[in-house]
C-alpha cells in the first residue's frame, strides 16, 4: 500500500461495501465530523447518521450516506461498520421525507420508551438523509 494513503473500508453486516485507498476520509463522528489522513492517531468512535466523504487528491470522489455505526481508525486504515449505507446520489428525497413524516407520527403515537427511541432514531436518520440529499 502506498505510504500516504488511507485504506478505507465500509462494511455492512451483509457484505463489504467499499474497500479502497484514499487520500482523506471525512467521517461524521458522534462528537463532530473528523477527517482521517494517513498516520492519524488510533481511535474508535461511534458514528452518527450522516455522509462519509471520500477524497481523491483535494476533491470529493464519493459521498456515501450511512445511518450510524462505528469507526475504527489506525495510522494506515479507516474502517467504518454501518448497518445501512447508500451513495448520496441514490437517495430519494421524497422517500426520506415520507419516512420522516411516518417516524414523527410514530413518535406521537409511541407509548413505551422503546417505541419512542426507535421513532427518534428514525427521525434522526431521515433528517440526516434529507440534509444529505439537499
Amino acid at each position, binding site marked *: 500500500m502506498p505510504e500516504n494513503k488511507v485504506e478505507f*473500508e465500509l*462494511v*455492512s*453486516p*451483509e*457484505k*463489504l461495501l467499499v474497500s479502497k485507498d484514499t487520500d482523506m476520509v471525512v467521517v461524521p*463522528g*458522534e*462528537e463532530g465530523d473528523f477527517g482521517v489522513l494517513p498516520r492519524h*492517531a*488510533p*481511535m*474508535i*468512535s*461511534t458514528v452518527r447518521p450522516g455522509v462519509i466523504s471520500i477524497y481523491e487528491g483535494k476533491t470529493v470522489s464519493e459521498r456515501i450516506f450511512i445511518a450510524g455505526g*462505528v469507526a*475504527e481508525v*489506525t495510522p494506515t486504515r479507516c*474502517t467504518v*461498520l454501518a*448497518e445501512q449505507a447508500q451513495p448520496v446520489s441514490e437517495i430519494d428525497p421524497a422517500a426520506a421525507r415520507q419516512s420522516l413524516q411516518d417516524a414523527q407520527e410514530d413518535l406521537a403515537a409511541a407509548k413505551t420508551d*422503546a417505541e419512542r427511541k426507535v421513532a427518534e432514531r428514525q427521525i434522526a436518520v431521515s433528517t440526516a438523509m434529507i440534509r444529505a440529499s439537499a
Partner: protein
Amino acid sequence: MASLKDLRNRISSVKSTQKITSAMKMVAAAKLRRAQEQAEASRPYAERMDRMLGSLAASVAGKAGAPPLLAGSGKDDVHLIIVGTADRGLCGGFNSSIARESRNQINALKAAGKTVKVLCVGRKGRDQLRREFSDLIIDTIEDIAKPALKFDSAHQISERAIAMFEAGEIDVCTIVYAEFKSVISQIVTTQQLIPFVASAKEEDGAKSETDNDKLVYDYEPEEEKILADLLPRNLAVQIFKALLENNASEQGARMSAMDNATRNAGEMISNLNRIYNRTRQAVITNELIEIISAKEAM
C-alpha cells in the same frame, strides 16, 4: 409372490421418488452455494467487530460501570435459549441433533434449579421441543430465511433478547445452532450471547493485533458509551452469523441426505428390476412347461 404388474408399479413409483430426491439435491446444492456466499460476505463485518470489541473489552475490563451486557446482571437464574433450526424437514439429522442438544441443555439447567425460557427460530425445532417443554417456549419465529436471510431479522431477535434482559426477565442468553464445517459435517454449537464472552478466536485476534502494532486507541466518546452502542450491535451480528451458519448447514445436510436417498433409490430399482426379470422368466418357463406337458399328454 408379487405379480408382474405389482412389481412394475413399485419400480415406477421408486423411480419417481428418485427423481424428486435428486431434484431436491440439486436445489439444496444451489441454495447451499448462495448460503455460503452470504456467510462469506458477512465475515468481514464480524471480524472487525470482534477486533474492536476485543480491544474495548480489554480496556474496560475490571473497571466499575461496565455495561450490563458485558458484565452480566450479577445473577444467573433465568436462561434464554435461542434454538435455531430449519423450517422444513428432509435434511437428515440436522433438526434432531440441534433439538437433542437443546434438550440436554434445558434438562441440565433445570436440574441445576434454573428457570429456562426458549425462543425457537424455525418450525422444526419448535415441533420437536413442544412435546416436552411446551410451557417454556415463549415464541417461535418462522420463515426467517424466506426469501433470503436479512440482517434485519437477526436485529429484531437481538432487540427482543436485549429488551428482555434489560427488563430483568433473563440473566443469560445462549444460542444453539449448527456450525457449517462441510457438506457432510455440521457441528452443533452452543454460544453464549449475554453476557458477552470473548471467544477463543477473538482473543487470538485481539492478541495478535496488540502484539503487532501495540495500538492504544483514543475513544470518542468514552469507552463505556461506545461499548453501550457496540454490544447490542455485536449481539445482532452474532445472531446473524449463527443464522447464516445454520442456513448453510441446513442446505448442506439436506444435500447429503438427498444424495443418499437418490443412491438408495437407485439400488432399490436395480433390485426390483432383478426380481421383476426373474419373475418374468419364471412365468415364461411355467407356460412352456404347461404347453409341453399338454402336448405330451395328447
